[in-house]
């Protein structure tokens, strides 16, 4: 991907740091920077490099304080000069201009803050006009971003509030190098941009596995007893109460919570049932491993039961011993160093950069529910000896629908983040999907799966590409959420595709498998169905005059 930085100060100071961070995350990106204070020229000149490069992502960082220097007029409202206002106007014009001219790029715009050096002190005791002015600019930024879908606002103000200007800025650099940010400032700025890039790319962890003793409450329940553990809505015990609330908040965003604790189940159940300040309840946990087994085994089982990769788990445990054990034996699991002091748990958890979302879909809200249901399905599974009997008992209903504005966000999300059942792992962007929607060559479908346990929501996407002479159709992408793997849904979808192709007298279905480190679960989807590999990774199925029967345990509905 191509990332462009546009700025009115020397933002290139951030590049080394940012590049290193991209590298650690295995994000392959080319950074393009047209030079110091070139943003207006680049944006307003259609011949500029910006438009020939067409970056996927633009970070537009404009420090409005550069336009306000030495121009504070306490008697006018807003308290800035005409020329400052004009320059500010230019910024907004340029944002809207670039948003429209590069409609397929995503543009991240920093919001504005007031440089402490522009403070007029006590004179402003009942005015705060300058603050109000900056706030009005930020308000305008929000308005622009809500009417231009490719603009996303970055809350730069928040890191400035958090760390303070004195800790982030170095005025020697401001005067000598046209950038204020010191090392700490560059580090935080770089982290902030990276969080947004991760949200944009859908890079995030799916699950938090928590320990109980000294993690969700203070003390050891088995020794101290329910009345002596530290957990309350006041004093030191409140740190655990607050920590649980943050976890609950992640749960509500669709992050799966599980327990991984060495304890006796009945003792823990008592806490769940009787402790008045236990924020998290059993229903918030998709899996509860409360036993005396090795935590490594428990985590492996957790991943298996949830059908998620072990590398999508973040493990939170106060015990250094357990953390080291997990780190050593399961290096894929993310094991942050929980602070020794529980009063720091909340800020620590908040700062973990693992759970970045830009927008939440209905499915995100519902996800935990479905994982819980899945768990019940798995339990039910064990009571059947024949998998087909089991599948039949699920009463599955699959609804297939061509893409529309309502399914669009979820489709893009699945394309961006599904790793396991993803035949070609082509990460199409919003813009590319839109292009396909407007083309006769392409068809994009999503599907939902309902069963007697509940609604799984949109769990899959497939993209069809028609040959111009309509002699064949290619399954360009076939993506399915890991939640529904193992239920032969893929076969039902292939039936749909075949029926559809036969109806338009198409004779051949082509398909491709591009292996990745993670897409093992879908490697054999075409082979198992009876496709023939005619070239490495390329599969085809002749469907002319052939009859394919849909297994009786599906009801297939095409909308």
């Amino acid at each position: 991907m191509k990332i462009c930085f546009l700025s009115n100060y020397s933002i290139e100071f951030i590049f080394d740091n940012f590049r290193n961070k991209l590298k650690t995350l295995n994000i392959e990106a080319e950074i393009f920077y047209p030079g110091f204070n070139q943003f207006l020229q680049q944006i307003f000149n259609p011949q500029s490099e910006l438009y020939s490069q067409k970056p996927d992502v633009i970070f537009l960082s404009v420090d409005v304080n550069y336009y306000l220097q030495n121009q504070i007029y306490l008697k006018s409202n807003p308290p800035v000069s005409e020329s400052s206002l004009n320059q500010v106007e230019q910024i907004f014009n340029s944002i809207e201009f670039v948003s429209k001219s590069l409609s397929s790029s995503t543009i991240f715009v920093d919001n504005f803050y007031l440089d402490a050096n522009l403070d007029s002190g006590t004179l402003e005791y009942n005015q705060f006009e300058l603050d109000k002015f900056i706030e009005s600019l930020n308000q305008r930024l929000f308005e622009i971003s809500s009417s231009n879908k490719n603009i996303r606002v970055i809350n730069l103000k928040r890191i400035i509030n958090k760390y303070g200007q004195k800790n982030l800025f170095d005025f020697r650099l401001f005067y000598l190098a046209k950038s204020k940010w010191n090392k700490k400032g560059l580090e935080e700025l770089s982290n902030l941009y990276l969080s947004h890039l991760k949200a944009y790319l859908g890079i995030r962890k799916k699950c938090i596995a928590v320990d109980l003793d000294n993690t969700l409450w203070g003390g050891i329940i088995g020794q101290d007893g329910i009345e002596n553990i530290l957990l309350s809505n006041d004093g030191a015990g409140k740190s655990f109460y607050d920590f649980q609330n943050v976890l609950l908040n992640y749960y509500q965003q669709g992050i799966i919570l599980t327990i991984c604790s060495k304890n006796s189940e009945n003792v823990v159940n008592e806490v769940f049932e009787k402790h008045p300040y236990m924020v998290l309840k059993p229903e918030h946990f998709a899996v509860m491993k409360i036993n005396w087994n090795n935590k490594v085994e428990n985590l492996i089982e957790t991943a298996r039961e949830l059908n998620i990769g072990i590398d999508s788990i973040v493990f939170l445990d106060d015990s250094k011993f357990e953390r080291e054990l997990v780190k050593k034996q399961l290096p894929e699991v993310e094991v942050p160093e929980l602070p020794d002091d529980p009063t720091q748990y909340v800020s620590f958890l908040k700062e973990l950069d693992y759970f970045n979302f830009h927008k939440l879909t209905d499915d995100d809200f519902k996800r935990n529910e479905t994982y819980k249901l899945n768990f019940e399905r798995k339990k039910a599974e064990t009571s059947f000896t024949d998998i087909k009997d089991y599948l039949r008992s699920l009463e599955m209903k699959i609804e297939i629908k061509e893409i529309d504005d309502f399914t669009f966000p979820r489709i893009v999300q699945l394309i961006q983040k599904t790793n396991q059942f993803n035949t070609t792992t082509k990460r199409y962007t919003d813009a590319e999907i839109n292009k396909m929607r407007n083309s006769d060559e392409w068809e994009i479908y999503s599907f939902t799966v309902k069963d007697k346990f509940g609604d799984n929501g949109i769990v899959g996407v497939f993209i069809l590409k028609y040959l111009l002479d309509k002699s064949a159709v290619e399954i360009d992408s076939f993506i399915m959420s890991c939640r529904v793997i193992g239920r032969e849904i893929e076969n039902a979808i292939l039936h749909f595709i075949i029926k559809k192709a036969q109806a338009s007298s198409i004779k051949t279905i082509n398909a491709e498998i591009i292996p990745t480190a993670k897409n093992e679960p879908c490697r054999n989807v075409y082979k198992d169905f009876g496709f023939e590999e005619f070239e490495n990774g390329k599969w085809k199925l002749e469907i002319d005059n052939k009859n394919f029967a849909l297994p009786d345990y599906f009801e297939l509905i095409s909308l």
Partner: protein
Amino acid sequence: MKNLIETLIFKLENKESISIKMISDKLKNLILKELNLQEFEFSEETLAKDVPGWDSLKNFTIILSIEEEFGIKFLTEEILSIKNVGDLQKLIDLKVNQN
């Protein structure tokens, strides 16, 4: 060992020969790291423009890293007064001694 000490004493007495060695390994390694270079022979007379990648931007990142590494802080005029690597080393030594 005895030889080494004798050489050092000789060098200390003879200020001209020690000047070639005046760029400390600590400074050298720090510059190499910031510029992503494997090796470079620095002398007191080395100018930024003689070293691959040492542009005005890197100039500041090197200064900031030096401050962090040596626990010192330069004044703006001191930063502006640095003409070559020798100046930089002398300034570091001066600042470190002041602490």
